[in-house]
């Protein structure tokens, strides 16, 4: 919920970034406060996925201008793993497969790395087993997935649920969901959305990057931003998404 005294989680100013020598982001401004849900919409190539990868620090993307502060820190001064440890989480559009590495081993290593960062005790495998069996209910996954290699042989929907499981275990301050709804059937979409909703608190925030209004029926945003040509060209409430769905992006372009 939006409240006047929310603390600022992420503040991006005039962000410009290149990939492969081509400028994709051409001055993005965005402020996200704790307790808020934002949606970033736009057509293919508008720069919305680039935006999420730049925030997470993907090595192929180079910041050429602007600033970003996250939880009071200069985001671009941090390595990708430091950003993650500071509480920034990216749910990937195309989750990678890691053959031979079990889901639970990965989750435990990531969890314990965070615990160490926060000055807390690491969990041993048995303690962690208890924790993860609680968390896995959030995404209605069978515990047998924990013993399987990360994403190997998972369906598209299972991979996306696995991303949300990681989010549930790591409890990030800011979760960026990069087209988490793409490739999901309606049941999987509901499960993923329920999972995300159950993780929302007044102290964290979510940024959803999506093509479609569909996801926003399940995870209701406080703000909807429309990206076009590497900039946020329109910001509104959840009704903006409905209008986009009804009238298409061309309407916005014609209006601009």
């Amino acid at each position: 919920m939006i409240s006047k005294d929310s603390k600022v989680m992420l503040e991006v100013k005039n962000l410009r970034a290149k990939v492969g020598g081509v400028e994709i982001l051409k001055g993005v401004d965005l402020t996200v406060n704790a307790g808020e849900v934002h949606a970033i919409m736009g057509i293919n190539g508008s720069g919305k996925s680039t935006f999420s990868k730049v925030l997470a620090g993907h090595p192929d993307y180079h910041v050429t201008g602007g600033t970003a502060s996250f939880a009071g820190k200069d985001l671009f001064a941090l390595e990708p793993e430091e950003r993650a440890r500071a509480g920034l989480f990216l749910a990937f559009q195309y989750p990678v497969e890691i053959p031979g590495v079990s889901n639970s081993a990965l989750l435990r290593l990531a969890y314990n790395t965070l615990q160490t960062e926060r000055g807390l005790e690491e969990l041993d495998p048995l303690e962690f087993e208890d924790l993860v069996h609680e968390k896995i209910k959030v995404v209605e996954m069978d515990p047998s997935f924990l013993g399987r290699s990360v994403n190997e042989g998972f369906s598209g929907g299972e991979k996306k649920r696995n991303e949300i499981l990681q989010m549930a275990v790591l409890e990030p301050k800011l979760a960026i969901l990069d087209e988490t709804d793409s490739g999901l059937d309606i049941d999987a979409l509901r499960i993923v959305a329920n999972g995300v909703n159950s993780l929302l608190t007044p102290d964290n925030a979510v940024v959803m990057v999506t093509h479609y209004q569909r996801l926003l029926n399940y995870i209701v945003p406080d703000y909807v931003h429309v990206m076009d040509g590497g900039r946020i060209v329109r910001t509104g409430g959840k009704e903006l998404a409905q209008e986009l769905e009804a009238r298409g992006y061309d309407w916005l372009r014609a209006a601009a």
Partner: protein
Amino acid sequence: MSTVLNNLVNQPYKHGFVTDIETESVPKGLNEDVIRLISKKKDEPEWLLEFRLQAYRHWLTMNEPDWANVNYPRIDFQEIIYFAQPKPKKQLASMDEVDPELRRTFEKLGVPLHEQKIMAGVAVDVIFDSVSVTTTYKAKLAEVGIIFCSFSEAVREHPELVKQYLGSVVPSGDNFYAALNSAVFTDGSFCFIPKGVKCPMDLSTYFRINTEGSGQFERTLIVAEKGSSVCYLEGCTAPQFDTNQLHAAVVELVALDNADIKYSTVQNWYAGDENGKGGIYNFVTKRGLCKGVNSKISWTQVETGSAITWKYPSCVLLGDNSTGEFYSVALTNHLQQADTGTKMIHLGKNTRSKIISKGISAGRSSNSYRGMVKVGSRAIGARNYSQCDSMLIGDRCEASTFPTIDVQNTTAMIEHEASTSKIGEDQMFFFAQRGIGSEEAISMIINGFCKDVFVHLPMEFAVEATKLLGLKLEGSVG
């Protein structure tokens, strides 16, 4: 590759120290006189000298093999010292008599030489340069009739066994390096497990090459009689020299009816520096003969060292229902070259073999799997399953697979699976995004990749292998 994927392989070699012990060597070079001298120094019987000379004469007619996917300057076999041993040479009755300097060396290597460490359950035969220094725990093994001693001692104490089995699996003229070894081998390990005895502990040999310019030609012979079983561990290191050292060992295993031999190696010979200077040439012939029915021989190797590796631990499945297994992890970095794999020769009925090979290439290295599965016309119902996976780290290394399948009867079933993967930027970014640093990520990916092999290693070797791979790759991704 990103900086993350660029630093993982630059760990300095930890075992590159030289032990300052007086050694006694014969002059470099090879001729019949040198062979006679070696044989004389070792006080060998006439038949063994004949075995050596015959091998030498055969060797002279042979050419160095050039079919492997490795490149190196021609070796001048007259520049090699064929025999070096720590001075003074005398019979050592207990560990206390071992040169303290030598003992410190083994302590640095982490070899459990002392009795209290051996309580952990490993009997160790230590080969230093060419001479077996001591065989621990011998007495306890002798109680159940197991002979575990240096090869020289076996020649003295059990000549009939050595004579019966030496060269029975790898004939002296088998190949260029086996012939060379047969002519000049200096020591090694001998192990005999009598009928029906399950060896109560893992037997272990630790090889180390110390003298610059010396070759190491050890000879290992393991015989498991009917219904017996043994688990044998071999570890290897060498100090760091700018010159290349030749290591041409021969290992022969014989398993009789219902016998079971498991042979594990963690090879960490010096691999040369990052520009490819120095390092061991590891040209080794390892072969097991499943002679009896229901016998089983299993090779597990973790190859991380050596400038050049040329090694194909193989199984000849002669007995009906016998089983051969080969589990291998070969890691190359910098300018290392490895051409390694196995041969499974099915001769008996219902023989089975399994090959799991994992090659990891980093830096500018070259890593080849070369394998042969051969099924003879009488091997009714033979089965083989092979899986060869390669992993590339960075974009300047090379991985190749050369599988050969030769089937001479219609009842055989052969399966071959292969895959090539690359530790990609996207995987590394995924780990980073979950807060996991690059070295931990690599270690996790590599261990996951090698899991199918590591589960076949004895516990302490598995731990060592995991650490070793991590160290070897440190800095190659970054």
